[in-house]
Structure formats: structure tokens, C-alpha cells
């Protein structure tokens, strides 16, 4: 009998199967040849793979199959279309009482009894109170809190323009925090309809199944904490913990979203998942921002939070990348589109790599409108480490653009960036080269020629909304041999204009290891690849 656990072919086949271990073409061929000839190896490998699959499935626990559950629900408990149900609820808030089938005489007696009860109850109270659904715990805002009701009833619309509200649902213990401007309807004990604004929910076990409806979707909680945002343009959801089911307005199957997932829903399009899993990509701590003569300077820009600071003649509801399009289109010569924007402290370019959730705060961009995003703009003169042809590789969630001598040479933004949709810059996606949590993988630009002399560089990087920001920017020189990962991706160097300090190198190393272990992406840090900023430029 063969002792397969000492058989290198068997172990290599397992490594290839379970871990996508990279093997040379010759090795792959020899393994397939042996598999074709050796029936004992085939049986052993099949048994091993089958057992591995079974142990995975058994240990994973019972799955929640919502689509199947919906189909197997008894007919009488099947709900009407989602929109119908919501509209029904909104029209008749007290329609929670359902009638089973009764004969006519029974209905007559029930009717009489109801009349007696109605008269009796009216004797004591002219206006019977609707049941309280939720209780306001706290309100902070410009509205007079005395005018606000403490108890909210079923079917009641609740809205305010400025501030924050905290409320608890009486039956389920669901905890809701909403920020203004907010407009929502309390459809029932376990359901709200969000028309406008942002709410965060923390759902205890007894509140599982709590539903938040928006015009685009229904979000069903499965034991979790999540944030829903609704606006005339669509809605967004971010799962902070646990998981939720996202259903469409019709009876199409639900989709599960887990911790860390974020999705956008446009009025006329399908769900667009931003990340299926928490990216877990480390955030590099911000190195000293004090500019040296050899630093590439930059600034961080955003829209002011207070609308009164905005230019009343302009509409600033389109996000920061669209706002800066004229700047890019004019070769970074026309800065009038920056009027009305606010900025943080001066920046010093340290490369782009990892998560940037805390970046605006760290860069002192205070009181900016996070819904409209932020952009860091670095500009200056730089000199290549040596003349030659170069091209950029990278990706950003959301905006990333590099221009040399005023002409864009790389655009690596997410699909919803105005840079990507309006500028028509050459770009190739490489899904087989994983990059952060981007499905597109690394994007690359065209080759561009660099001589001995300095060139002007403009680099834009930022976020379109809120704070789930990540990015990476690498540079390749034509003809240069780069070390490759075992799955064949060249480790292009990080695009830098100063070699990072020891602490930052350690953090970048941790980021690289995270990428290699979790997503199979990679990069390198090389002194030889650092571009120089001529002193005093």
C-alpha cells in the first residue's frame, strides 16, 4: 500500500488544490501525467479532497438559505409584494388585525360586539391612543425639543432638519440613532420606512428580523448593527456587525451582506456591492507632515459642512471628483473650481498605500461635508530615478489620478468616480493581479517617457463619500526585472518621492504581508525607485 503522505506528488496536488500553489508548467504536466496513470493516487486524492470538503461544510454550521426559506413558506404566510405591503401599511397603520374567514351570522355578531366595545371605549376616551412603538431617549438639535413627542406611534411620520435623535423600540429593544435631515415613518414595531437621512441601528437578539425600507430596497436584520442612508439619489447600507438580508422591492430573492459590507442602490439600477467582506487592510499611521525642501507638497480639500459657507450660486451636490474635473481638464492651470472648498493642513507626500479612513481627520480637514467626499492634491516638480519609460499601477476606492506635465497618465479610480467616467483616460484592469479589495484588481496606465530633466506632477487621491477609503499606487520602469510573488505578480515598487522612515517601512511591510496572505496582492519598497523632488522646487 502506498504511503501517500510522504509522496511529494500527492502533497503538491493537495497544495495546488487547496491553496492554488504555483507550480511550473513542467511540474503541472508531470502531475497530470501521473494522475492519468496512477489509479491509486486518484482514489487517494479524491478521498482526501472529499473529506476536506465535508469537514469544511460540517464545521461551517447550518447555512441560512433565505431564498429557499421564502419559497418554502406556507402559502397563507406569503407576503404581498414589498412595495404593496409598505404602501398598505402606510395607508392603514392599524391594519395589523387580520380577519380569518367567518360566516355571515358570525360577522354580524362580531360587528355588534365591536360596536358595543367601541361605544364603551369612547365613553371614557374620545380619542383612543394608538399603541406606542418607540420612545425618544435623546434629541439634540435646533428644533424645539419640547415640541417633540416622547412616544412615537405606529404609522407616525417622524422628521427633523438638524441634529440627532436616539430612540428605542419598545417591543424589540432595537436602538436607533438618526441624524438630520431625517424623514422616516414608523411602520410598526419591527419596521421603519426611511425616506431621507441616515439611521444607525443596533438590533438585540429579540429584535432580529427588524426591517428598514427605503425606496430601493428592504434591509432585514439578522442580528446585527448597521447603517442605512437614504436620499433622492438612492440609498446606501453599511453592515457594522453581524449580517443583514437585502431584498428588492419585488419578491426577488434576498442577498446576504456580512460585517464590513457596504452597498449602494441607485433608483434605477441594481445593488452595487462595495466590499463583500471587511477589507481588513491596515491603515498606515500618518508620518510627520512638516515639509522639507525635498518633499512633494499637497493639500486636502473638501466641501464645507455648513451650507451657509457654500457659494449660493453654485450647486455642490455632485461630489468632489466632479468638482475638480475642470482643474484636470485645464492641465491643472485653472483653480477657480476650488473656490468655496475648505482645506486642512499642508500635506507631504508619503506614497499611497492601504486604508485612509482616518486620513481627513489626521490631516485636520475639519467640519467638511463627508457625504461629498475629500481629495488630496499633491503637486510639484520631480525627477525620475533614471530616464526611461514608466507606467503607473494602482487602484483607489474612490479617486486616483496622476498627471505628468499637466497630462493625465494614470487613472485608477473606482467605477463611480467622475475621473473615471468623464475624462476618458487610458486604463487597463488586471483582475488576476489582486489589489486591496478591488474586484478590478490593479489598474495600469500607458507608458510615458521621462528624460533627465524634472517634470511637473499632479496627483489626486480621495474619497467620494463617507470614510471607507483605500488606495495603492505603484510605478513600473520598462525593462526593469521585478521580483515576483509565487503566483506570478511582479512586486512593483511603491511610488515614493521620499524614502519612508523606519517605522513607516515596518507598517508598509505589515501591509504587504497582509496583502500577500489575504488577497494575494503585493508591492515592494525600493530606494532605487524613489523619485526626487529637487531642493527648492
Amino acid at each position: 500500500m502506498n504511503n501517500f503522505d510522504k509522496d511529494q506528488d500527492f502533497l503538491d496536488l493537495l497544495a495546488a488544490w487547496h491553496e492554488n500553489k504555483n507550480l511550473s508548467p513542467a511540474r503541472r504536466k508531470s502531475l497530470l501525467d501521473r494522475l492519468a496513470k496512477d489509479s491509486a493516487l486518484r482514489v487517494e486524492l479524491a478521498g482526501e479532497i472529499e473529506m476536506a470538503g465535508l469537514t469544511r461544510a460540517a464545521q461551517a454550521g447550518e447555512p441560512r438559505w433565505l431564498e429557499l426559506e421564502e419559497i418554502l413558506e406556507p402559502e397563507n404566510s406569503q407576503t404581498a409584494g414589498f412595495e404593496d405591503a409598505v404602501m398598505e401599511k402606510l395607508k392603514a397603520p392599524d391594519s395589523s388585525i387580520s380577519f380569518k374567514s367567518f360566516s355571515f351570522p358570525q360577522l354580524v355578531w362580531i360587528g355588534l360586539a365591536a360596536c358595543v366595545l367601541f361605544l364603551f371605549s369612547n365613553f371614557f376616551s374620545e380619542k383612543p391612543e394608538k399603541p406606542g412603538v418607540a420612545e425618544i431617549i435623546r434629541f439634540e438639535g435646533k428644533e424645539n425639543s419640547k415640541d417633540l413627542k416622547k412616544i412615537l406611534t405606529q404609522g407616525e411620520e417622524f422628521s427633523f432638519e438638524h441634529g440627532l435623535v436616539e430612540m428605542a423600540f419598545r417591543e424589540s429593544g432595537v436602538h436607533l440613532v438618526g441624524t438630520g435631515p431625517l424623514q422616516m415613518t414608523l411602520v410598526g414595531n419591527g419596521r421603519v420606512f426611511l425616506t431621507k437621512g441616515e439611521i444607525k441601528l443596533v438590533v438585540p437578539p429579540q429584535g432580529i428580523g427588524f426591517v428598514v425600507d427605503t425606496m430601493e430596497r428592504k434591509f432585514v436584520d439578522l442580528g446585527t448593527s448597521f447603517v442605512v442612508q437614504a436620499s433622492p439619489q438612492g440609498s446606501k447600507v453599511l453592515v457594522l456587525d453581524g449580517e443583514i438580508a437585502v431584498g428588492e422591492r419585488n419578491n426577488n430573492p434576498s442577498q446576504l451582506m456580512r460585517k464590513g459590507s457596504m452597498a449602494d442602490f441607485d433608483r434605477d439600477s441594481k445593488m452595487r456591492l462595495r466590499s463583500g467582506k471587511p477589507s481588513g487592510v491596515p491603515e498606515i499611521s500618518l508620518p510627520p507632515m512638516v515639509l522639507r525642501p525635498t518633499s512633494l507638497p499637497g493639500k486636502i480639500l473638501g466641501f464645507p459642512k455648513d451650507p451657509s459657507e457654500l457659494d449660493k450660486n453654485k450647486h455642490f451636490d455632485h461630489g468632489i471628483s466632479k468638482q475638480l474635473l475642470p482643474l484636470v481638464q485645464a492641465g491643472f492651470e485653472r483653480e477657480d473650481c476650488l473656490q468655496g472648498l475648505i482645506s486642512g493642513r499642508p500635506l507631504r507626500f508619503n506614497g499611497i498605500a492601504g486604508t485612509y479612513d482616518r486620513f481627513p481627520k489626521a490631516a485636520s480637514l475639519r467640519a467638511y461635508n463627508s457625504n461629498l467626499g475629500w481629495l488630496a492634491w499633491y503637486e510639484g516638480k520631480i525627477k525620475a530615478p533614471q530616464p526611461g519609460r514608466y507606467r503607473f499601477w494602482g487602484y483607489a476606492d474612490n479617486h486616483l489620478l496622476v498627471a505628468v506635465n499637466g497630462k493625465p497618465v494614470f487613472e485608477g479610480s473606482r467605477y463611480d468616480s467622475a475621473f473615471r467616467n468623464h475624462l476618458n483616460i487610458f486604463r487597463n484592469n488586471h483582475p488576476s493581479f489582486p489589489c486591496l479589495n478591488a474586484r478590478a484588481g490593479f489598474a495600469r496606465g500607458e507608458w510615458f517617457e521621462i528624460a533627465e530633466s524634472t517634470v511637473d506632477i499632479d496627483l489626486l487621491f480621495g474619497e467620494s463619500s463617507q470614510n471607507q477609503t483605500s488606495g495603492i499606487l505603484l510605478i513600473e520602469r520598462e525593462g526593469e526585472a521585478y521580483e515576483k510573488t509565487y503566483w506570478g505578480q511582479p512586486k512593483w515598487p511603491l511610488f515614493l518621492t521620499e524614502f519612508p522612515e523606519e517605522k513607516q517601512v515596518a507598517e508598509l511591510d505589515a501591509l504587504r504581508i497582509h496583502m500577500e496572505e489575504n488577497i494575494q496582492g503585493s508591492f515592494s519598497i525600493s530606494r532605487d525607485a524613489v523619485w526626487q523632488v529637487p531642493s527648492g522646487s
Partner: protein
Amino acid sequence: MTSPSSKFNPDNIVHDVLQGNKDRFRLLVKEYGLLVRGFLSARVYYLEDAEDLAQETFLVAFSKLSAYKLGTNFRAWLLSIAKFQLTNHWRKTKGRANTMDKFRHDIADAIQPEMMKASNQLEKERMAKLLACIAKLPDRTRHLIRAGLDGVRVESLAEELKVKPNAIYQIRHRAHIALRKCMESDEPEPVL
């Protein structure tokens, strides 16, 4: 060796479901859920994909239940649907597959008959013993089996356990042999 639990007769359930008692379909899901999930988990890289395909298999089985011929082999019929789902999945993901993904497909093609045979040999009542058998593994081996589920890469695991990656596959292989023996025995004994 394709008979499921001796007391369980899928045909009666299928008959009930076809008569309109669709809630009874849950019994089929309960009986064959692990089999289908295990079958797919063995063949698909990401567990989430396997779970989605397993659900799809049961959805198709439910919608096509009238096509199942009573008196034949329900389990084999169900696995044929799972296999169809898998083929579809591979076809759809082929465009995105890299060299090593393609190599995995080549391996799967080469050992397909043996894998079908191996999954046919997994009887339901034996599968039910699996978790109890895993619980009897030594801590280190159990950790190693669990790590595979959690998606920890072999290189990281080898570093953590201070062994070479090959040793991880060896320990897993031995554990799987022990688990198979444990599942087949009438009175599960502590394994390894």
C-alpha cells in the same frame, strides 16, 4: 453503498411535496443538506460559493421535483443537480480563472469518477458522526482542520505551528484518514 438512512424514505416526502405540502421539502434539505454542501465544498475554492451553489441545488430540485422518478435514487438525482450547478459555476468563472485555477479544473477532470465514488460512499448516518469525530481529534490537529475552514493559509499555519507547509498537508491527510475510520466505526473511538 448509496442508500441513505434506512428509516428515511425520500420518495414519501417527494410525494407529499408534490401533493402541495411544500413545507415537507425541509426534511429533504435537512437529510441531504450536508451531503450537498460537502460535495460542493470539496470542489469549490470559496466556501461562500459552495453554500450559494448548495442553496441553488435545492431550489432547482424543488422547482423540478416533478421530474424526479419515484422509486429511483433521490440522492443521486440531487447530486446530479449539484454537479450541473458546479459545471455552470466553472463555466461562468472560467474567464476569470488564472493558470492555477485552470490546473485545479484539470485535476478535477482527472479524478472526477473517483470523486463521485468517494462522495457516494459517504453515508448520511456516517456523516452525522463527523462532528463528534472531529471533537475527538487532538487539539493541535483540530486547530489545523478548523484553520482550513477559516481560510488561514498553509504558509501562515506552518509558521504558527513551526513546521513546514508539507507537514500541514501530511497532518491533515492523517486526520482525514482517522476521521473516515471514526465515521465508519459503530462506536466512535478516540482517533489518532
